[in-house]
């Protein structure tokens, strides 16, 4: 009998192991010394990024004609899994693409501080904060990502409102929304919180209309008082907006990508807190409702002492692995990837707001011009300052807030605890 049990275990063990297979990366080509640099990203295979990659390669080839650059495009939904495996084994690409904020900061240990190599670019490029941690810069920004509040000028007009004068205060904003809903049947906000992203956009999009400049600075600097009246007000607004019927139905089962944006595209909602680059942005909205109908408005003032600003950060950027053979060479590649010519191509083809402040973006429609005009006064977005863990918890709690299974005070206590632990 004992022997039989032993056999059983031996037979079952490999079977059971199927339950816990780990994500193995594809054959990762190691870069380094032998005149090859390997770049990992999720962009280079896109048709819209082709000209950008070509420009960057050409720029780099001019400086280092004997070095070959290999771009490996990974699927985005597996990107950080694969990168995590590479970092764990201490070998992988020399240069890699990152989203700004938590995804980069969580992996700063595996990256090379770049401030000495990139000193010349500091002025020309914007959005460094999202790629910095503990006083070091770990990646150079390629695009800017932010959260403007877009509105549908056609709906404003249909409701008899002035499309060029959106509400400046929260009270007026609510009144406008009511008028629009009555006249057109469109909801106030297109909102999707299935993945828990809705609250992030809400926090950053409306936060600058609630927090005072001092509170805002403290938040970004890391001194976050989750129980302050301002922060509490933002989360109360999140609940109130849904209860007052400002959002589309089924917020917790509506995916932000792309059901939420589809609601705005279809003219079924008057406002959406969108993005600046890549997706859910001016270019996409313009294709559906007409570029002339896409408006951008500052956050309505909830607190009269607040100073609304455009929340934006570095969107994506290239960093250098700490294990690379020749740091200077890899940093040079990062410089090529953020050269003006390359970024101009990226802006033109992919519809991204590039990090290079010297690019003229005024020709792409009124919304783009508005956004670019606000960049000099813009500030880092509130949610980007949070760790990936706190963001995940905030997403879950925001769903519970909408279903009423947690109170605002409870949620803020939990968030404060998670924020301090991280």
């Amino acid at each position, binding site marked *: 009998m004992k022997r*039989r049990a032993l*056999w*059983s*275990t*031996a*037979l*079952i*063990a*490999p*079977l*059971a*192991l*199927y*339950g*816990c297979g*780990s*994500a193995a990366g594809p054959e990762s080509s190691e870069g380094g010394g032998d005149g090859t640099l390997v770049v990992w990203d999720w962009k280079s295979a896109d048709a819209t990024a082709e000209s950008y990659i070509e420009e960057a390669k050409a720029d780099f080839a001019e400086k280092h004609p004997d070095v070959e650059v290999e771009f490996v495009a990974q699927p985005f939904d*597996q990107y*950080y*899994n694969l990168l*995590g*495996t590479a*970092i*764990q084994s201490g070998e992988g690409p020399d240069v890699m693409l990152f989203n700004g904020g938590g995804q980069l900061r*969580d*992996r700063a*240990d595996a990256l090379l501080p770049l401030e000495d190599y990139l000193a010349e670019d500091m002025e020309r490029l914007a959005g460094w904060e999202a790629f910095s941690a503990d006083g070091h810069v770990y990646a150079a920004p390629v695009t800017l990502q932010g959260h403007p509040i877009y509105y549908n000028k056609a709906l404003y007009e249909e409701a008899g409102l002035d499309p060029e004068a959106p509400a400046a205060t929260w009270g007026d904003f609510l009144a406008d929304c009511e008028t629009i809903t009555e006249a057109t049947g469109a909801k106030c906000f297109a909102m999707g919180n*299935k*993945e*828990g992203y809705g609250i992030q956009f809400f926090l950053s999009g409306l936060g600058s209309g609630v927090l005072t400049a001092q509170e805002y600075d403290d938040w970004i600097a890391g001194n976050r008082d989750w129980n302050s009246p301002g922060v509490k007000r933002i989360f109360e607004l999140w609940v109130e907006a849904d209860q007052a019927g400002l959002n589309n*139905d*089924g*917020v*917790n*089962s*509506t*995916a932000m990508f792309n*059901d939420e944006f589809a609601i705005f595209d279809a003219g079924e909602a008057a406002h959406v807190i969108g993005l600046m680059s890549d997706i859910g942005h001016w270019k996409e909205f313009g294709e559906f409702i007409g570029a002339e109908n896409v408006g951008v408005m500052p956050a309505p003032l909830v607190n009269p002492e607040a100073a609304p600003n455009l929340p934006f950060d570095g969107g994506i950027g290239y960093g250098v692995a700490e294990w690379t053979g020749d740091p200077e060479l890899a940093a040079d590649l990062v410089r090529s990837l953020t050269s003006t010519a390359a970024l101009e191509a990226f802006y033109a083809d992919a519809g991204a707001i590039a990090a290079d402040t010297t690019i003229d973006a005024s020709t792409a429609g009124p919304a783009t011009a508005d956004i670019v005009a606000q960049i000099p006064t813009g500030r880092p977005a509130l949610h980007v300052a949070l760790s*990936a*863990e706190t963001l*995940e918890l905030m*997403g*879950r709690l925001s*769903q*519970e807030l909408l*279903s009423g*299974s947690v109170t605002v005070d409870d949620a803020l206590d939990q968030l404060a605890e998670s924020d301090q632990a991280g």
Partner: protein
Amino acid sequence: MLEKETGSPPPSAGTAVVGPAEATAPVAAHRQARGPRRGRARRRPLAERLAPYVLVAPAVLVIAGLRLYPLALGVNFSFTGDGDRNGQAVGWDNYAILFDDPLFTESMRNVGLLVLLLPVAVLIPGLLATFIYLRVPGHRVYRSVYFFPAVLSPVIIGAIFNLLLAFDGPANALLGAVGLGPVDWLGDPGVAIYAVVAVHVWATFGMALVVFLAGFATLDASLIDAARVDGASLPRVIRHVIVPGLSRTIQFVVVTTMIGMLTSMFGLIYVMTGGGPEGSTYLPEYYIWFQQGQMSRPALASAASTVLFCVMLAVGLLQLAILRRSGRED
């Protein structure tokens, strides 16, 4: 089948080790035919003793090198830290974090829920197969229709049901037409897990149905005819004739359905709910993927893998016990 393989030792090993000269006679005769090696007759027992080990070696090495060794590494890794404590031994910290994490406890609760829902998942194909076997009108059509979803990938099925179960989707439109309020199928934490399991059952019951139909093929039709002649109603025929006759098939379906539920729902969850709403549809697999990739906490993910491994081991041994008992009944 299993009984025979594991119950008696391999014959060649037995004769070589235990057997006196007479017992190895056939082998010796075989050797003799090769001629040149006749002179080394005294060494034969050693070679014979080694032969079985050499023969099993590839299989053992593959299991040990590619399965057990990585498993040991993984378990070992689960006792190290993440982030700042990368590489340092942290004892049971990861396991403490795990069982303190509401997401992980939710995922384990959902495993329990899956076990509770198992009878439903077996009953549905069982009943439908019974109807087909009893030749309800149109049974030929149903046989292929029921199997059809089994050929679709979970991602496609998830995408289809995302549309059907959307808040403003057809399912709620249908409910509205009969005067019932809309249900937020994938947005209500009390409903979402059932919706996902229901979709999983819909997607996979075709396979179980085929197994049931195969089982029915072995059923003695004269028994059912006899029961009918005696005036037994349909429920009684099912209860007293069909179910006992299919006991082994049912056990097999229970085991395979259980494995399917525990190991292949990742795709559906990933596409349909992403673990939400409020973390109510997390399963251990999804949790592991999430911690490893999204939160970059590979050591914590290893700890969760180790716990899942133990659960699967327990379930696997239980299944073997069930299979063995069914073998004995035979």
